[in-house]
């Protein structure tokens, strides 16, 4: 699943480690989510979206599900 996490993270000058610490996961999980290899669970997706002050739909791209 495509996400805007990398773009949002870089705009806030955050490292993957810092974002991982903030949302309670590991750097490797953030890396996997950013490259689209791993799909975050609903609780983690919510934590990430909330961290950026956005909704889940604004962070995660659900268009492939609609196809």
């Amino acid at each position, binding site marked *: 699943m495509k996400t805007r996490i990398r773009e949002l993270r870089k705009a806030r000058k955050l490292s993957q480690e810092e974002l*991982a*610490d903030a949302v*309670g*996961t*590991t750097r*490797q*999980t953030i890396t*996997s989510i950013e490259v689209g290899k*791993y799909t*975050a*669970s609903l609780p*983690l997706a919510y934590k990430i979206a909330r961290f950026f002050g956005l909704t889940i739909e604004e962070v995660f791209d659900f268009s492939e599900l609609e196809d």
Partner: protein
Amino acid sequence: MEQFREKLKLENRITAVLCVILMVFSVLGFAAEAGLVELTPVTGDGRWQSMWRGMVSGASFGVLVLMVIGLIRSIRALKDEKKLKKLYIEANDERQIQIWTNARATSMQVTLLLGLVAGLVIGYFHMAIGVTILAVESIHAFIGFAFKIYYSKKL
């Protein structure tokens, strides 16, 4: 986080007990090899017993070292909030949990299949071994199926 702290303390106690048991195994094994202790009666020339004892002692010692390292890491984490949080995240990381779940499910299928094939092939040469392997694999499959039913009802 408090629940994790209590769980870690309990795990540390269990690990400490296991370390003591493994240390006893290792020491007994090495002492027996050095001729200081007479353990099991020797059959034949005792070569295979000696090899088995050496293997168990060595493996026990290796596992003991790993467990002591893990125990020290846990004890240090309990004294440091930052390390405890890191340990908590590592233990509860959803991606790691999914990786382990998938790995265990796949390994169960693979070992079941390989065991079945091994049991059938070896049965041609040595029936008792073949039947034993097939019995073990049957129990393996039954337990796997039982857990599948359990989790189907639970989730």
